[in-house]
């Protein structure tokens, strides 16, 4: 635009070229100041919005910290003491602290709590190899984790008499765990699974395939035998599910729900898309029915009405009823997620698969599902988060989950009326877990889509 400034039409009498004063340099966009100016105060409305935004955030956190930390009482014998000290201006944490074991483990016998911790540790160790870059058998480890960990964990949690079959199953779980640890170790160090590594280490590497396979099976059997012996040695007292509670119960319910909902959801989604009209109709009915009512009504129905549906004398414990309700509900939701993923796979993939001579199950399992599942990961994790949050509802049917436990604090004679503090504590736990999951899912989404960015 500079050239338009000088009047070019009338040739001016020989005038000396006078440069116009330089424009002021544009505000710096570099450095902290520049960044702030560009991102926060680029215009008047923008600046106003910035100031208001900062003020709201400040006011909120100021009030929150004042109550939760600034004015809070950390040491007291009863709520009366807290009230006498600060009234209602500050939080009364000692009550929550006294109840923390119950908030986490429920009414689980305190001398048996190590069993829950042990199961947690096993779960962690079992899952860690999934993140180790050099481990190859991740699929097997993941599957064994989902399918066999519950067998082992349920014995740790429940304890009690174990018959032959039950022992064998627990041993299977334990064996899978041992196998996972050994395989992860040998694969990280030598790049070989435990069975093949053992065969090689024993000097049979040069034998025929058949012999080596038999030996590998023998190694696996040996692991199983070790597990059986360990399980025989382990004898735990029975802990009824009624005393399960707190965060532990919340995790059990949501864990089982999550583990169950994905396979069940896949089956339902396939059923809904099936060409067999009856199967499609039944799947659709199931999905729509369970999706159309609030979880709270399903829980209620299972809780109050399941005993009526079963023959006289058959008792299904309350926890199992809630778990069944949560599983069916989440399966219906997962089915719709999976259906969405399947819809996104171009029809050409199906046609190509059947042109290759793959049957329905092969095409689905080997071609379609892997692609669909990859697309769906963020939504699936979103559903898991939803499920975890929804477990707060089991408190309404009287299970002592995290939320009901927090209510019990305020009914303890010593801490009578303590309501907001445990409530705040529980909210924080939920937030941390859900936020962790959602950040992980974002991370996963980015890593998965990395290959597709061009």
């Amino acid at each position, binding site marked *: 635009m500079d050239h338009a400034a000088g009047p070019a039409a009338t040739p001016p009498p020989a005038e000396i070229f006078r440069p116009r004063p330089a424009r002021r340099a544009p505000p710096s966009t570099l450095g902290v100041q520049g960044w702030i100016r560009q991102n926060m105060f680029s215009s008047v409305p923008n600046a106003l919005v910035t100031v208001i*935004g900062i003020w709201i955030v400040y006011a909120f956190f100021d009030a929150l910290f004042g109550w939760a930390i600034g004015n809070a009482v950390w040491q007291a014998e009863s709520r009366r003491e807290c009230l006498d000290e600060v009234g209602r201006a500050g939080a009364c944490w000692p009550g929550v602290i006294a109840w923390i074991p119950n908030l986490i483990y429920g009414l689980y016998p305190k001398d048996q709590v190590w069993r829950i911790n042990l199961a947690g540790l096993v779960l962690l160790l079992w899952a860690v190899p999934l993140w180790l870059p050099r481990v190859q058998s991740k699929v097997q480890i993941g599957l064994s984790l989902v399918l066999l960990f519950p067998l082992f964990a349920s014995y740790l949690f429940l304890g009690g008499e174990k018959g032959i079959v039950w022992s064998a199953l627990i041993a299977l779980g334990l064996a899978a765990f041992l196998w996972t640890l050994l395989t992860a170790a040998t694969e990280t160090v030598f790049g070989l699974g435990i069975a093949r590594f053992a065969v090689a280490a024993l000097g049979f590497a040069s034998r025929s395939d058949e012999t080596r396979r038999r030996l590998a099976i023998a190694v696996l059997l040996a692991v199983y035998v070790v597990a059986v012996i360990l399980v025989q040695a382990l004898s735990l007292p029975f802990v009824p599910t009624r005393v399960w509670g707190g965060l532990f119960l919340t995790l059990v319910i949501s864990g089982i729900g999550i583990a169950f909902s994905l396979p069940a959801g896949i089956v339902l989604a396939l059923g809904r898309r099936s060409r067999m009209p009856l199967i499609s109709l039944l799947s659709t009915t199931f999905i729509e029915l369970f999706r159309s009512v609030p979880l709270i009504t399903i829980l209620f129905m299972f809780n109050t009405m399941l005993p009526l549906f079963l023959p006289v004398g058959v008792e299904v414990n309350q926890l199992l009823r809630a778990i069944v309700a949560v599983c069916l509900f989440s399966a219906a939701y997962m089915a719709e997620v999976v259906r969405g993923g399947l819809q996104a796979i171009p029809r050409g993939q199906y046609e190509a698969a059947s042109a290759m001579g793959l049957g329905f199950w092969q095409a689905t399992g080997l071609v379609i599902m892997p692609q669909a599942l990859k697309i769906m990961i963020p939504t699936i994790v979103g559903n898991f988060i939803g499920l975890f949050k929804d477990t707060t509802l089991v408190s309404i049917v009287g299970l002592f989950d995290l939320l009901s436990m927090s209510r019990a604090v305020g009914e303890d004679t010593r801490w009578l009326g303590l309501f907001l503090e445990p409530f705040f504590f529980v*909210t924080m736990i939920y937030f941390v877990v859900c936020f962790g999951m959602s950040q992980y899912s974002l991370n996963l989404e980015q890593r998965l889509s990395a290959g597709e960015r061009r």
Partner: protein
Amino acid sequence: MALLESTAPSSAGTRLLAFVNNATVRAVFYQALTLSCVVLLFWYLISNTIENMSQRGMSAGFDFLGVSAGFGIGFTLIPYREGDTYLRVFMVGIANTMLVAVVAIVISTVLGLIVGLARLSNNWVIRNVARWYIEILRNTPLLLQIIAWYFGVFTLLPRPRESLGWLDAVFLNNRGLYLPAPLVGSGFAVALVALLLGIAGAVAWARYARREREQAGRIRPVLGPVLALLVVPPVLAALAVGSPLAWDMPQLRGFNFVGGINIPPSFCALIIALSIYTSCFIGENVRSGIQSVSRGQTEAARALGVPPGRTMRSIILPQALRVIIPPLISQYLNVTKNSSLAIAIGFPDLVSVWMHTSLNQSGRAIPIVAMTMGFYCVVSLAVSLAMNRYNRSILIKER
């Protein structure tokens, strides 16, 4: 299987295999199997239920619906007195649930749109406030949020005697929001007719403007005339015939404000919590919808000299809507279902007043749970049907 078939020597065996492998035969077999399983299961459950109920002397009848309920309900959209029947309680519950759902849907949509756009803002503070708003609120259970808002609303608001008042007509305290209630006056019918005529006129004008734009390319003003058509006729009619509406003003008398409309804090808390929680999900839908529209569209619009506001309104949003609407509708369904959490703060919605209080007082578990689930089923299925039809119409067509 295919391998077996080709090598099988006996022709009878081949035929049998061919029969077994026939897709139609298999389909029929599987379906018959599933059907018989389902029928057996249902027969088993129902026969057990009948036996159990007869043994325990429980009744499944709906006869209790005509019995007087006898408890008070704090907030009712339709008239209700303590002596009314259980059926009436059911109606009250439905009306309250629908009210919550509708209000929360409207607010959450608006909020969600704002949050979704804020998430894409150039302003760092706004972008991040929006981001953390979504992250924090999406990752805490709604049940906890509802309770938190209930107490939040409470501690912020003054007690009735120190109410915040506005023009002596609107009052706000921790018992709720008090608004003047319209009372139908003499000229109400005339004003109503005028209003209806105004609406009809507005719709006609909007259609005309659209046809002009699409066929002749002439842009007619829409917003101004439509507003005018909606407001002017009823006001004129009202002025002509005298006051059609009298106002019932809330007044502080005794413990509470009397008269007018009272919106209790539990309702406010529920609406706030539901709207805010849902707005996070809607916001993310909006964001991903807008981001799904290719950047080239924005650039092309700018190259053509379309102003930014108009680009958003006329170019980006219509394309983004295709992505936004299906999940949006399922969010709407979620709002309806989530309103059942009102029980935690004692707002008398269907679940609270029917499946909780009435069930407790009458003890009729089966009919009450069935009626509650039936209501949610009907609402959801109706919306679901519409949604699936819409989904089919916007699917990208292959071949």
